[in-house]
């Protein structure tokens, strides 16, 4: 169990539902108890369309206080696109509940290997006050995007200067961001996560897919939609 449990994301409560409702990741007005299992969330979900992910089932497990959901690979498939958040007729928000579940899983050391990719975001933010694609992502993107992209990345400083911007996107935060990250316990938590990843000794995780791909076509469209060439906008 993580010694630096973030009490605001995952407040300790008797049930998963209570934790989800109290967490600062979910809206104050969260309609979790009002869920009628209508499935509007799953019907609007991009992950449900292409994988076996189901926000409706996740909400059901939370309401049943079934803690096995924390170990489910499913919770790592959400896109955080908030389609379920906007479409829920009961003001529930599966997308923010999943964020709480992931934090609870991380507290127990579950799924930490999935964070390895992104860990340097914190250090980069502390140092430069800005964000960038993390290092491991750069390597992946370089492989995918090839010479044109990496050439642009190498050439970014003169390009920015030509546009009249500072050569590098570095912010003048007077060390305050670094200090904030120290004081909230961010770095301690990061260190704990790094140690768990090492313990698990996971290598090559980047090459594997996290979810079973159902080979769904993802095709929700009606036959007539496929022929639909789009209609001009009515603008104001």
């Amino acid at each position: 169990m993580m010694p630096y449990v973030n009490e605001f994301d995952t407040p300790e409560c008797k049930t998963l539902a209570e934790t989800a409702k109290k967490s600062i990741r979910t809206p104050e007005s969260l309609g979790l108890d009002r869920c009628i299992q209508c499935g509007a969330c799953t019907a609007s979900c991009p992950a449900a369309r292409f994988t076996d992910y189901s926000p409706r089932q996740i909400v059901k497990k939370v309401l049943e206080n079934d803690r096995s959901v924390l170990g489910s690979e499913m919770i790592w498939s959400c896109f955080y696109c908030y389609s379920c958040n906007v479409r829920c007729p009961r003001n529930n928000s599966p997308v923010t509940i999943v964020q709480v579940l992931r934090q609870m899983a991380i507290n127990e050391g579950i799924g930490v290997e999935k964070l390895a990719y992104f860990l340097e975001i914190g250090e980069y933010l502390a140092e430069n006050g800005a964000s960038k694609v993390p290092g491991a992502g750069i390597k992946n993107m370089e492989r995918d995007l090839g010479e044109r992209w990496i050439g642009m990345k190498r050439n970014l400083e003169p390009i920015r200067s030509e546009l009249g911007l500072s050569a590098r996107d570095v912010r003048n935060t007077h060390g305050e961001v670094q200090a904030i990250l120290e004081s909230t316990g961010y770095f301690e938590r990061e260190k704990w996560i790094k140690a768990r990843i090492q313990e698990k000794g996971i290598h090559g995780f980047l090459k594997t897919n996290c979810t079973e791909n159902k080979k769904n076509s993802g095709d929700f469209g009606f036959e007539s939609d496929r022929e639909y060439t789009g209609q001009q906008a009515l603008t104001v």
Partner: protein
Amino acid sequence: MVGQEYPGVETATRYVFDRLGVDYYINDEQSCCTGIGHYTDIFEGLTTTAIAARNFAVARRCGYPNITCLCSTCYAINKEACEVLNTNDEVREKVNSIFRERGFDDLVYEKGDMNPRTNFYHAVEILLSKVGKIREEKKFDFSGVKAAAHHACHYYKVKYLDVVGNPENPQLIDTIAAACGAAPVRWYEDRTLTCGMGFSQLHLNKNTSLQVTKTKLDSLQRAGVELMIHMCPNCHIQYDRYQPVIEKEFGVEYDMVHMNIAQFVALSMGADPYKVCGFQTHSVPLEGFLEKTGII
């Protein structure tokens, strides 16, 4: 993310704001909101909220308390953090105790210092509010350009009650593009589907991520769209950088090019495609489009 991948979005926004008479100030003391860290699950809510509280103080201190974002995730993160700071006394006290302990008394946030509904805007809302002037300032007419809008999820699906228009079918980009003379496609299949980036999904479940993006690009291709206009650097990366990857991996071909709405408005006002819009950092080459429309 704008600064690292598409710096032309920033310069195009400045160019357009200057011509529209928007009174703005770019403060390099503002840090990244770290939405990228928050939504890849490595930042917890307390840190994200504290970073936001610092940025709010910076904005108030320089006399420009209305924060306008070029990225939809920054927009949502800031609004949510503001709401937490106003409603959750425990979190606000914790954040303030950190500031005091570090001697950052000027960063302390008092309840109600910012209003989540009126202090936060996305640049596209500013452009929409000046759409009449955009029409007047038009130096270059995009008549007949078939354009499609992708409104960013974190603009209209997170704090959906604050959206300008209907969150089930936002029309901000369409309205602005039409003012520049373009012919926006009102509805195309999967218009409200995410771009597919999904924060960690692009890196952890790349196959699914690209399938989502492909679904959207397929639909645009069927609708005969030649220009896709977006409002968020993450969507921009997903569409512009990954369109060639999808073409290669799935054996398909697409005819559309991509740009941010500010870049499109800047072009319409006569801005240089490279010195202002920064198209040299794009992955899908825009030369064909620029030649066809007579810009170069």
